[in-house]
């Protein structure tokens, strides 16, 4: 009796071993990936030393770029629609650009193909929102700004008793940060939507500004301590303050992602990624000064470094980098469109797609 029981147990153990024996055979005949691998696939590369002006052949899917003094418009498939050198600086938007000298009295708005759109009198330097909907003129002493209409008329203007240190635009809204520690958000007609004078730092100053599509205003404010201030709500009544470890004495790069979920804050030799709704913070080491920062919904790209070299990082928000590279480029520009990354390095522009397999 005991023998027959033993024999049955031996038989059942064999059955357990069968799948382990069959698995290698199955994987051999029907191979499957055991995980998904993400990599960057180069798509095209452009030489930016070319001077190109195609006139008024503006088409959809064109986006602006600026790498050092070189700027222009390129299609997603790599056709350079317009390429030129900034006279002094250039104001860029999706709808067109203003290339201006160091002492302008008029500014000329051109379409992405380099065709003339309009010209307005302006003693200041132009500032365009990304969509090209609003044109501002910033006083050359940073003591004020004007919103200009297409005929050059002043829609509203403000002068301040302290220089402007930072500005963020969202459509027709403009958030202005000042050297004396004040920040004011102006509406389309110059109405004050929000005003804040963050206190609690030994030296009041606004060092960074950002506006999200969801209506949140963000500021980097003060020295000793330096703080990140977030204001949201219909009247910006909900305010949150995060103390930062940094001690910057210059403008600090501050950007929201396209859906407003994540905020990217430049810190000393790193990029702080912050998800305000969940109060999650992650840090990405980026030595040197931040040179470029662009965030898409899925991916972001940032570059930092010194005068001669740049360190580039591609990453998902709050996650470890997907790719990092050190490049011998002084000027870096980047933007993200879906899973396509566009990177400008000194005199070339390239596209790489994020591919998962």
């Amino acid at each position: 009796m005991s023998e027959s029981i033993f024999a049955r147990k031996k038989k059942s153990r064999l059955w357990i071993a069968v799948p382990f024996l069959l698995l290698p055979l199955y994987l051999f005949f029907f191979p499957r990936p055991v995980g998904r691998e993400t990599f960057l696939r180069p798509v095209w590369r452009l030489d930016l030393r070319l001077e190109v002006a195609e006139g008024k052949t503006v088409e959809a899917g064109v986006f602006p770029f600026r790498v050092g003094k070189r700027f222009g418009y390129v299609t997603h498939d790599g056709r350079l629609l317009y390429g030129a050198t900034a006279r002094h600086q250039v104001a860029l938007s999706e709808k067109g650009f203003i290339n201006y000298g160091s002492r302008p009295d008029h500014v000329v708005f051109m379409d992405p193909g380099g065709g003339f759109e309009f010209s307005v009198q302006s003693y200041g330097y132009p500032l365009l929102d990304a969509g090209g909907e609003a044109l501002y003129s910033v006083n050359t002493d940073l003591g004020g700004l004007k919103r200009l209409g297409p005929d050059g008329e002043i829609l509203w203007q403000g002068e301040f008793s302290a220089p402007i240190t930072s500005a963020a635009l969202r459509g027709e809204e403009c958030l202005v940060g000042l050297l004396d520690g004040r920040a004011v958000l102006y509406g389309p007609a110059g109405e004050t939507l929000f005003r804040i004078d963050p206190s609690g730092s030994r030296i009041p100053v606004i060092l960074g500004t950002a506006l999200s599509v969801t209506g949140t205003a963000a500021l980097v404010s003060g020295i000793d301590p330096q703080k990140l201030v977030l204001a949201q709500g219909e009247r910006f009544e909900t305010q949150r303050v995060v103390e930062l470890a940094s001690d910057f004495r210059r403008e600090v790069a501050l950007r929201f992602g396209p859906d407003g979920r994540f905020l990217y804050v430049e810190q000393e030799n790193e990029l702080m990624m912050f998800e305000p709704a969940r109060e999650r913070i992650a840090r990405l080491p980026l030595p040197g000064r931040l040179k470029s920062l662009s965030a898409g919904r899925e991916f972001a790209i940032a570059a930092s470094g010194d005068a001669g070299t740049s360190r580039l990082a591609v990453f998902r928000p709050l996650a470890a980098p997907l790719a990092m590279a050190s490049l011998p480029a002084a000027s870096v520009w980047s933007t993200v469109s879906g899973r396509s990354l566009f990177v400008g390095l000194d005199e070339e522009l390239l596209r790489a797609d994020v591919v998962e397999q």
Partner: protein
Amino acid sequence: MKRLLAGLLLALAGVLGAAGFEWPLKNPILTATFGEHRGDHFHNGVDLGGGEQPVFPIAEGELVFMHEEDAGLSSLPVGLGNFVVLQHHGGIRSVYAHLKSGSMEDVQESVARDLAIGVVGESGYSAGKHLHLSVIDTEMGTIINPHLILPPLVDNQKPVIRDLFVRSGKELVRLAAGLTVRRGEVEVLGSIYDLRPDVSFLWRLAPYKIYLYQDGRERTSLIFGSLHERERGSQTGVPLAAGAVSELTLVGGEQGFRGVFEEPWLYRLGFITLTPGETSVVVFASDFAGNESSREYLIRVTE
């Protein structure tokens, strides 16, 4: 009230001057003064020439803000070029602009008076190498004329009152001896400038004070001592310019840029009421060193 404010400004100058502020260049050559016409706004500081040379802080202080062209990300186009902002005692902040690229590398968080913070350059909105210096009184919330806190510069040249005009409606009439005008309210304008003592050619600077008197009574004054910010809805002074949400106006008279300038070097001196008979119009101008000029006209007023 205006005299009181002017007195307060001078008292402030005395207090701050005694606090040991110095010019930022070894041999400052004044090439532009506070309150000059800058296209659509007041010049909010002084310009100092003399070629490429080290720039020193006006006093020991602490770095608050600096900007280097083409370094890092910037949300703004910056006409000040490479610039440094320092904080000093008494709530004073000083701004040093148009510095030479790469000359600010040694700026530390704490700056001593004898250590250069940069070199005179022409970065940003600049027609040549010069230093733009502006001074902000953070406690008063005003931008002040740097002369108020810095040691006096030698100057023995009087301001020039070249021409005076009256405007009735759209007509602009140059004042001359024996001029006859009709009764009514007219605006007085003056072509006025100060001169640099160190050049023989015409190089105009702005005067410090301009007064308009009618029959011995002060009508208006323009004192380029400090600028403060007035916001829309402010109850004091003349209305803000069209579309202005905030405007820098002269402390004392509350005139904004458009209330002061008709065009460069042509000042809007204020309105006077002319009644039949004779009236005396006197314009008085002085520079910061105290050199004074005046012009007087006797106007005959008819019905």
